[in-house]
């Protein structure tokens, strides 16, 4: 196995495992910058995964190759609808954000499995037929060195995720909407005084997180797991939450942290195919991503500071 194949294998599997985390952590970034803590990303991903798999199974025969992409949209929309629960509870009903987010996590897996049982009469779905396969960018794949590593047989959703995270960074820091959103997360009173609709902005933040979390779940289901069961989404949402904190509530930070988690995860999965790594006992490879995360956090980041009003209810005085 030469260096080239090793690198391209590493990069492509890093991309595959990072993509769901990138989308979902971006969602978390938007929700928390608007001031709503969102620990419910796991639940949102579960609903996205569920919806995309059901959609994929139902329409694969008529939509063909387009199915997984439309599955992303469906997963996103369902995630958004599901996140409405969190939005209403925290913004209008003064709920504690952590408890409300936990409700999403508690609600989604049984709801998904219940619906699967009600629709298919069994505990888990069939495997989908149209999944995200490998994709080569025409033209780019032929660039020497870089082409085979980054653009040949790679994951198309991963590139979409990277583009989206740059776009979302730009929106958050360079547009009026982004400034207003952050204002609601930093100091809602001041934002309100300036005539910004705090409730509206916070709804936007949570719903965007629902959309992106749903997309994240849909990517995971259609690129990695291939079906939906109670164990489809187990912890990815929490990893995305960690990536968001790791990335200091910044879209680009969240993306880089997700790429790092994806890299570490893929090392533990493809490690046995790689020289040197295949001599390390698997347990070290398995726990490495988590240990490294803690170590890096302690060494280089220290205290990660959330937006000032993150997790605080804002109740407009009448």
């Amino acid at each position, binding site marked *: 196995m030469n260096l080239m194949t090793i690198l391209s294998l590493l990069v492509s599997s890093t991309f595959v495992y990072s993509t769901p985390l990138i989308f979902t952590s971006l969602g978390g970034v938007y929700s928390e910058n608007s001031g709503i803590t969102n620990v419910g990303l796991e639940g949102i991903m579960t609903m996205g995964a569920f919806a995309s798999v059901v959609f994929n199974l139902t329409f694969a025969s008529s939509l063909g190759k387009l199915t997984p992409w439309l599955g992303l949209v469906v997963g996103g929309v369902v995630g958004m609808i599901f996140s409405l629960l969190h939005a209403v509870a925290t913004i209008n009903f*003064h709920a504690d954000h952590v408890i409300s987010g936990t409700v999403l996590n508690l609600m989604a897996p049984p709801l998904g499995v219940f619906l699967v049982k009600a629709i298919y009469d069994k505990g888990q779905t069939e495997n989908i037929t149209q999944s995200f396969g490998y994709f080569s960018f025409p033209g780019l794949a032929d660039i020497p060195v870089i082409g085979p590593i980054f653009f040949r047989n790679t994951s198309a959703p991963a590139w979409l995720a990277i583009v989206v995270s740059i776009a979302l960074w730009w929106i958050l820091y360079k547009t009026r909407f982004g400034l207003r959103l952050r204002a609601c997360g930093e100091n809602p009173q001041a934002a309100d005084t300036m005539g910004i609709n705090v409730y509206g902005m916070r709804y936007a933040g949570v719903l965007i997180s629902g959309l992106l979390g749903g997309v994240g779940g849909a990517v995971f289901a259609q690129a990695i797991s291939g079906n939906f069961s109670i164990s489809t989404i187990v912890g990815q949402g929490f990893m995305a939450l960690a990536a968001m904190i*790791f990335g200091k509530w910044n879209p680009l930070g969240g993306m880089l942290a997700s790429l790092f988690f994806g890299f570490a995860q893929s090392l533990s999965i493809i490690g046995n195919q790689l020289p040197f790594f295949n001599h390390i006992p698997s347990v070290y490879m398995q726990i490495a991503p988590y240990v490294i995360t803690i170590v890096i956090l302690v060494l280089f980041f220290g205290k990660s500071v959330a937006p000032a009003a993150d997790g605080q209810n804002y109740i407009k005085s009448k």
Partner: protein
Amino acid sequence: MLKVKPKTKKILVPIISILAGFIVGALIMLVWSYNPIEAYSSMFTSALGNMNGIGETIREATPLIFTAIGFAIASNAGFFNIGLPGQAQAGWLTSIWVVLANQNLPKIVLLPLAIIAGVIAGAFVAGIAGWLRAQFGTNEVITTIMLNYIVLYSCQYLMQQVMSQKLRIDTDTTKTIAPNGSLRIEWLSSMFGDSRINAGIFLALIGAFLYWYLMKKTTTGFEIRSVGANPYASRYAGMSTKKNILYSMILSGGFAGFGGVVQGLGTYQNYFTQTTSLDIGWDGLSVALLGGGTAIGILLAAFLFSILKIGGLGMQTIAGIPYEIVSIVIAAIIFFVAIQYVIGLLFKNNKEKVPNSEAETGPATVSKTTTSEGGQG
């Protein structure tokens, strides 16, 4: 709008939340043309209709009481301990291992030894997160999530590679522990129709009492609560924030570890490979939220959850309704507890206006904003 005393309201809100949760479950069942009345009646009869059911319900509640107390202690100090599953798992494996490796010791030595070892294991895991938080300000949400995975894979490795083969049946299951390391009591089990009920429940009741005593009657408890309520004021008053962070996480992990111990020495009598984070960790979190972080609330909530979970199994076999409906009802109940502000609007305090006391389980950062939190309710 009904006029009630604030105290009555405090009791009415969870009761209404519970009823509303059941109604949500019923609506979902109606949509998919299952019969909710049949479902709920089969649920309650199988959980409470015979001695075996009652015994299993109590058995199910035992570890939840411990993990819920664990969550509540950390949340009193302003932490979100999401690492309960890992801490409980560490306690479970450790206690089983200690018993299996020392089967010849007399019960009076072995049982306490195994319990203490398990509790220390849980406390150790949580202590890592607490120490990092105290020393470096590292966010405990991330560290406890990461520790869940580290414990999950480490336990797999320890059991499959490190534990002596003599202690295992196969790679995934240990041998059953001898009676002198077990929490089972023969007369108790036979009284409750040969269910898996065990002495853990008595320990859990003692644990709940200790939790109440610790939080309300001791200086440590007071300091933990004040650090959670306002870390700056507490430091100004001369309390060590670092020390209290560490104490509360260690105590929290110790209780979670105890939850794993009763699961091992009481319920299963062995350890087997876990592929995902332990249920009792997540359920303990829900129980603590429903119980509002009080000892009595946690006990009642743990029993309610256990009735649902044990009864749900019966409901699935008798009425043929998917078990998941139980978890949906639980999630809905917690949702209504979370929006208790709205439920509170149904009632009017019959004394002078008192601001709504919201759930006190949130992390310290969820400090109420002064201008916004007026007594509008």
